[in-house]
């Protein structure tokens, strides 16, 4: 084999690897995207069945309940128009509070309960989780339009 051919093979192999890598990355990317929905959209049934997604909004006042075991909690997330009941097993973040912004990731079950496997609250005093703010904003828009 001439050196030129060897070099060509090397380039082809490298490009093939790169292509394979890119295909693989994009495939993994598409199947792992988590979409975000507001409580109003959840209520309207626009959410995927059996697939994980995120909801955001405020924790409804006086909605926090705790099961007998102490580690399973239920609360409702609201965007001021609709409320979605959420169930979560585990420890809530330090900054989780009724009346404050929250984002939850999980799936909706048969009874229409959102079973969260992750609950996020804001990181510091100065801002809301972006998704929570977004949900309230969208709800505000709908209200303005209907008025």
């Amino acid at each position, binding site marked *: 084999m001439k050196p030129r051919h060897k070099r060509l093979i090397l380039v082809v192999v490298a490009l093939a690897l790169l292509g394979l890598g890119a295909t*693989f990355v994009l495939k993994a990317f598409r199947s792992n995207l988590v979409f975000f929905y507001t409580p109003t959209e959840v209520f309207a049934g626009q959410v995927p069945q059996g697939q994980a997604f995120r909801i955001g909004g405020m924790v409804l006042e006086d909605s926090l309940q705790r099961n007998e075991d102490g*580690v399973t909690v239920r609360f409702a997330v609201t965007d001021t128009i609709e409320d979605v009941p959420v169930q979560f097993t585990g420890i809530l973040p330090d900054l989780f509070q009724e009346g404050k912004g929250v984002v939850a990731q999980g799936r909706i079950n048969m009874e229409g309960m959102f079973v969260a496997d992750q609950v996020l609250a804001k990181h510091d005093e100065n801002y809301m989780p972006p998704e929570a703010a977004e949900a309230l904003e969208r709800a505000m828009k709908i209200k303005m339009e209907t008025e």
Partner: protein
Amino acid sequence: MVPEIGHFAVILALCVAMAQAFFSLVGATRGYVNWMAVSRPSAYILFFLTSFGFCCLVISFLTNDFSVLNVASNSNSQLPWPYRLAASWGSHEGSLLLWVLMLSGWMAAVARFSKGLPNDMLSLILGVMALVAIGFYSFLLLTSNPFDRLLPPAMDGRDLNPLLQDPGMVIHPPMLYMGYVGFSVVFAFAIAALISGRLDTTWARWSRPWTTIAWAFLTIGIALGSWWAYYELGWGGWWFWDPVENASFMPWLCGTALMHSLLVTEKRGSFKVWTVLLAIITFSLSLLGTFLVRSGVLTSVHAFATDPERGVFILGFLVFVVGASLILFAWRAPKVGLGGRFDLVSRESALLANNVLLVVAAASVLLGTLYPLFLDALGLGKISVGPPYFDAVFIPIMAPAMFLMGIGPISRWKKSSVPDLAAKLKWAFVISIISASILPFTMGGWSLFVSFGLLLALWITLAGLVNLWTRLEQMSKGDGRTLWTSLLSLPNSYYGMLCAHLGVAVFVVGVTLVGGYEVEKDVKMSLGNTVTIGDYTIRLDALEELEGPNYTGVEGTMTILVDGEEVDQMFPQKRLYTVQQMAMTEAAIDTGFTRDLYISLGEPLSDGSWVVRVYLKPFVDWIWGGAFLMALGGVLAVSDRRYRKASEVSSSPEEVTTST
């Protein structure tokens, strides 16, 4: 008065940087020797002025000068002094001042330690760095002045974010920034080489130690950040694929690729164009990281759009730097020429494959980090890309890279033969396979994930040992040296490579075992209750009120029992920081060589009991131990005597006589 002096010093520094950029760059391209002479002293002056300004800010923080806006928003009279010190770089403004301090420090270091460089090359390098500095000094002064006054002065400050009140956070940002900004040196080397057209092996030898040391700092910085997240956020994770983490990880991946391609450029003269491109990409990713973290775009693209001043400035600067360097690259790179030829099976090929894999990994992180931001900015919906994506992508990309880590260092430059490699490595391979399939049984159950992780770690370690053994064997055959003298005569850079690669193996062990065998329990506990995890039984013995300097809280006393005998006590806390009314979980961690026991207090329940989370995390500290070994490897490599020799030869004669 102090803040005004500091402000003035930073303004002066900007002027110096402007003068330096002008005289160095024009002088170097036109060959005016006396213009070029400006560049070295001005680097020192720049560093002095910036340190002075930084000290002024630190003094304002230490003396609780709440008439300074930055101090009033980020400190408090109750805050212990080490955290007041850390608060001076805890805010946006302060961290940018730290950034320019690091940049001027690197410039002074280049001026001081590059005696071997030709004058015009040094001027070009410092001139390019001065251009970068102008951008950041202007950004600091125009949009984020840390010395702004507050009228009327506040009675007391609003306190530092409690999450940042932690020893790890005191040193994490400086380390991280040393790394980020350190890549500006190799970037400047690359630009200078493109301008002057002197892109040769000497160029690579000069750039290598700077890249390696910046990379070592970045490694430590990222590891500290991960360690901090582990113990301070209270939930025991060590990496979340959070955009802020990704922002620092992308330059690290490209920096790793850059170190390896610089090696090829130095030894074989190949990959020159690729190396220069990588240098540009690595620094651009550092700038992108700064943009992501400092523009507020991550918090919310909408906040960014409503208060765009800062973000637009860095974005513009980023576009300018990337655009200008890529145009220069496109213009000059074709003239660089190709380096030495190499065969399909050779160390060059292994390193090329490693480079491709690392860059693909960085690109996949970039995709996962930026795509949601783009969608959001364009109003096409909100999505998030979580750990499942990164896990799914990362393991398959990094696994072949790690497999190559065993082969690359042992194969020859230019041309290696497959049978020869196979003969050398077959036992390492067989032993890794056998041990990796058996070991998981002894640890609590076989799983493919654990077995595969252990295989990679064992393979890297054993191939490293074979490599060392072959080197020693050759040496003793060559001139009959004893084992010991051979060990001593091997260069530090070689040990640096072995140490860093071993660090990767140690890291992989940590990640694998914590991923495979971690046990987590969330339980409701009242006084006297116990919970059993692994071999440990944990009993809640007391809950007491807690009074800290700037917080109140509750401290639990947990007694650890093994086989019914008390072995230890642990004290997890729940704190409420009084100024910001922010709750914080302070986990209690019993660190061990083979496992961490991790207890954190969740929430109090109405009947006086608590929700408690306990973790048993096998080998988790190996993750950071591995990162430390990697960084240590970098330091070892830089301490190699050939770098010292190079600077001694070129220094003036009287200095040589004093040093010998």
